[in-house]
């Protein structure tokens, strides 16, 4: 028992705590010139350079906006699927389809989006078959574009199978169908009963999933790497590319960006207990009707 506890604690420290503390601490100390090959002693010059360079804020805003839009789209689609697939046969079919979608890795999905939506991609070729005068330049810019359409599309394609499967599972295991049936018996239409009764209950139970999706979309890397623009870049791409990929002199800047990323992540994590409390409280409140 004691040996098991010591082994567990040692593994916890070595494999979870040490890397976490190292990541945050190293980035923080490096960014103020206290660590690394380019250390100069305590300085705020890297922070000043990062904040006045006009790169950090646009990247941060772009990452957050993209994450919020992708998460919202995934949740809305997942809920629509869940509500519309409320029939045992359809539910099974949708479940199997979503499982197929869930098996696709982000890199593969990003590659497919690139091949479909780029100006020389399959969609543009399809249009060129119909209209012989059609040129690649006539196709709208959907990848490496200003609005990050490609990144959102790839995030949506990878997020929908997860949200769909999760929400279908919640719908089934929490027996939300009973409440919908009750609403229908009380006179609500089929669609209204699902949207006004099922969706709010589903939302209360999926808050934590929404939170995790938001964080993961904020940290997305593979899809933005393939489908994003060079400026502004999403946070993960910005940090990775400035950590010595082009110039070693940019390395301290990458740790400034990483420290900002960890600060945003910490703020989101501090928000987690509220989400958690809301989810459990809300879930219980929603089920407060008891037997139906």
């Amino acid at each position, binding site marked *: *028992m004691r040996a098991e506890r010591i082994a*567990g604690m040692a*593994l*916890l420290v070595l494999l*979870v*705590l040490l890397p*976490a503390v190292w*990541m945050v601490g190293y980035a923080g100390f490096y960014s103020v010139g206290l660590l*690394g090959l380019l250390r100069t002693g305590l300085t705020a010059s890297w922070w000043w350079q990062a904040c006045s360079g006009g790169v950090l804020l646009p990247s941060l805003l772009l990452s957050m906006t993209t994450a919020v839009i992708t998460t919202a789209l995934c949740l809305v689609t997942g809920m629509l*699927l869940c509500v*519309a697939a409320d*029939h045992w046969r*359809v*539910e099974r079919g*949708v479940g*199997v*389809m*979503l*499982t*197929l*979608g*869930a*098996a*696709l*890795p*982000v890199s*593969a999905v990003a590659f*497919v989006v690139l091949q*479909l939506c780029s100006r020389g991609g399959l969609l543009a*070729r399809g249009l*060129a078959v119909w209209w012989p005068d059609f040129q*690649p330049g006539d196709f709208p810019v959907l990848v490496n574009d200003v609005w990050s359409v490609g990144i959102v599309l790839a995030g949506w*394609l*990878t997020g929908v199978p*997860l949200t769909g*499967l*999760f929400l279908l*599972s919640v719908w*089934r295991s*929490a027996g939300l169908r009973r409440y919908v*049936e009750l609403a*229908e018996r009380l006179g609500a239409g*089929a669609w209204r*009963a699902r949207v006004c009764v099922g969706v709010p209950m589903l939302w209360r139970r999926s808050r934590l*999933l929404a939170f995790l999706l938001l964080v*993961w979309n904020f*940290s*997305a*890397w593979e899809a933005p790497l*393939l489908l994003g623009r060079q400026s502004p870049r999403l*946070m*993960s791409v910005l*940090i*990775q590319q400035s*950590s010595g990929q082009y110039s070693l002199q940019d390395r301290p800047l990458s740790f400034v960006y*990483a420290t900002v990323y960890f600060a945003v992540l910490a703020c989101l*994590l501090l928000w*987690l*207990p509220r989400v958690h409390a809301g989810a*459990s409280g809300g879930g219980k409140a929603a089920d407060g009707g008891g037997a139906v």
Partner: protein
Amino acid sequence: MRSGSRSAGGVIGRCVLLLSVGVLCVLPYVVLVWLSCGSGWEWPRLVPLRLDGVAWQRAFSGSNGRAAWQGAGLSLAVAVCSTVWGLLISRCWSESGSGRFRVLLYLPLLTSPAIAAGCLFDLMARIQLAGSWLGVFLVQSVYGTSFAAVLFAGVREPSSWRREQLVRTLGGGDVAVWRHVVLPDVRGLLPLCLFQTALLSWLDYGLTTVVGGGRVQTLTMRLFSQIREGGVSQAAASSLLLTVPALVALLLLRWRDEGAVMTTGGPGLTGGLRRELERM
């Protein structure tokens, strides 16, 4: 599970729904198979100049085949070690039962692998593990172990404690506790944990590319090289090869438990934490 309620949208609506979901989820496979079947994609051809299996021959041979086998070995090692380590950590966590502990375990899971790898690279360089398989294995295990710990800590219930006490009262040692309490408790989650941690390693690009420094070649690394080099057919074949183990694992898990939620996409490990999320 037959619904007694009126269905929203009727038969046509259901067909449209199934069709849309089908297109959404199956279209990427169709595109990948189509792209991998030939070469010579001149504008505006929708059909390749040559329909051959060259991309598939190359996918299984040379550096691609080697990268696939090496990646599979790495995934296996990460899956087994992370599962065992996560199980041990989850036992400590269950005993302390602290909410802050939970956030700590979530921290590596929530951090972008590319950013984490950028910060951990110097640590790996200091202990001379940067650019080595062991270095990549260790950083991937950080993620795998956190996931396994969160997953297994969710299954500990008061009845588990009582059974453990009973086994100890009857004279059982640690081995007996593991045999009669711990393993039966987590038996249902073991395949999920093994598959999910193996897929985490199999599909990882961020940690491998930074910590591996180009010396550690897995199939995902090859895929990105092929995309950068413009090898469309080759990249499509590699993407499918990368997807097959995930697809088999997911279908097996779904066949075993219809409510199983496991994904390989951006949100990565969230699906595996369904029970944990629902419990919250």
